[in-house]
């Protein structure tokens, strides 16, 4: 067989799978978003009502805007905190040595942990009676000694953010260690000989060199933060009230608990839009490399 035909045949199965498992559901979700779409009402999945699901979300549903707000704050906080803390840790580990190699090995573990399990473990750690972190914060900040973290809207939000940051710091740290290793050593040494302070070396040499890697991890982390579901479901299930209800959780609840497939498909599509921009930005970095 000629290579010219073969090359298309080789990608065909993969294209079929990707189409069936990702593209088709996207298109079908778009169609559903224009229907009445009630799970318990036969025929309503073919009953079209135009843009009504979308206008309903925008105009009639404070809970939708609440989840948009929660997701936005959550994304900004988790991306910012994870990036800053991972950068700090990467700088600590960059010089190498025995500690670094054992640290790097340990940093793999949270990736292997199911996000659902991370949610469970943080619910455990912040239990008001026997939670270790609860006790720790109680000693450190006395006003927090007797609070029930997951019962307070703001504190529950803080716990959800902490669980996310805890789970993602390792991955970002490992990426940034790799990025730091590619900062040319002679430039850094030359600057140090010239009497530049540690901070100036970091600001004027390390940070600009790290720029592209930093951009990649920030985009990637933003995508994962926007999608967050597992931990939230296990940790707070969106509560108390709707204080920690992310968009994914809101869609899940409307679609699966209330059976409003049409409406939740509309909200789901609203969520895809920021993803398209982020993916575009991410793809630019990937292809610049190749």
């Amino acid at each position, binding site marked *: *067989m000629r*290579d010219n035909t*073969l*090359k*298309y045949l*080789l*990608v065909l*199965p*993969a*294209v079929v*799978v*990707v189409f069936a498992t*990702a593209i088709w*559901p996207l298109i079908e*979700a778009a169609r559903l978003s224009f229907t009445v779409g009630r*799970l318990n009402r036969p025929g309503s999945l073919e009953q079209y009502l135009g843009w009504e699901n979308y206008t309903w979300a925008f105009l009639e549903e404070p809970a939708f805007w609440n989840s948009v707000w929660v997701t936005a704050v959550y994304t900004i906080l988790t991306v910012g905190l994870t990036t800053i803390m991972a950068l700090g*840790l990467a700088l600590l580990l960059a010089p190498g040595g025995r500690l670094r190699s054992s640290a790097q*090995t*340990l*940093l793999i*573990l949270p*990736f*292997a*942990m*199911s*996000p*659902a399990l991370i949610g469970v*473990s*943080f619910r*455990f750690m912040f239990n008001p009676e*026997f939670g*270790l972190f609860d006790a720790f914060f109680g000693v450190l900040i006395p006003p927090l000694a007797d609070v029930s973290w997951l019962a307070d809207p703001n504190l529950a939000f803080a716990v959800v953010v902490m669980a996310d940051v805890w789970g993602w710091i390792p*991955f970002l740290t490992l*990426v940034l260690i*790799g*990025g730091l290793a590619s900062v040319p050593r002679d430039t850094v040494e030359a600057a140090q000989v010239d009497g530049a302070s540690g901070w100036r070396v970091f600001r004027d040499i390390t940070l600009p060199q790290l720029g592209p890697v930093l951009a*990649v991890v920030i985009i*990637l982390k933003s995508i994962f933060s*926007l*999608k967050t*579901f*597992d931990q939230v479901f*296990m940790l707070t299930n969106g509560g108390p009230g709707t204080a920690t209800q992310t*968009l*994914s959780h809101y*869609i*899940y609840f409307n679609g699966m608990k209330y059976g409003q*497939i049409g409406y939740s*498909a509309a909200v*789901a599509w609203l*969520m*895809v839009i920021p*993803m398209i921009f*982020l993916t575009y930005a*991410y*793809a630019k*970095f*990937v*292809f610049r*490399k190749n």
Partner: protein
Amino acid sequence: MTGRQRKQFWRAVHAALILVAMFVMLVPIVWIFLAAFKTHVDVYQLKLFFTPTLENFGIVFDDPYRLGQKLFNSTIVALVTVVIAIPIATLAAYSFSRFSMRGETMMLVIILATQFVPAVVIILPFFVMFRDIGLLDTRVGLILVNLAIVMPFAIWMIKGFIDGIPMDTEEAAMVDGSSRLQVIRNIVLPMAAPGLLTSGIFCFIIAWNEFLFALILTNKEAVTLPIGLALFKGEEGDLWNLLSAAGIIIMAPMFVLALMIRKYFVQGMTMGAVR
């Protein structure tokens, strides 16, 4: 302080900071490991020293929890997903790596993009379809949707490995009269084998830990381990000793697998954006 003392001081601070960071990273994991060996009395106290017991591991496999069934489901679903995904991804990755095609960049971007589509979007139409054709609460259904999250990682990761294999041997074999398919089978596959194994393990971990699809699609027969965690809610709240024992069963095998592929972890997660 003299210059040398100061240097030693900062070195100690540096090491201490790293140790504190490692401690914080490990505490939630260690705490689960400890709780799994505590009795249902000890687990409700903030105890560091206790008499360990193995009874929790027995209980979770017994009625009504029957974690063994979930363990079986998780293993089958993750394994079959990988066994389907890796060969398909390998063929595509080879083609993407060695040939230039019309619309190649477009295809690669779309494959990349599917990874970023929120899982909750993908699952809505699948739920409706599976309900109509009777695939709800089956392992087959779960495997089909799991392919959606695994494929993009597999293709991009394997492409990275094949890109790293020099083309000379292939070209020499072609000159000697081998066909392209023979070249793939006899030369590329053996050389890419470690990479394929790495990608397979990576995808296995992702499929094993998958939560949202299983939550929506299963309720009794095909329930996987992460969903099984929800079982351990008693009348008076969470049964932490049992939750922890189940937690160990979920994460311990993945720790072993993750350590095996730790060098490729970053490359896999970023799909080639960072090497």
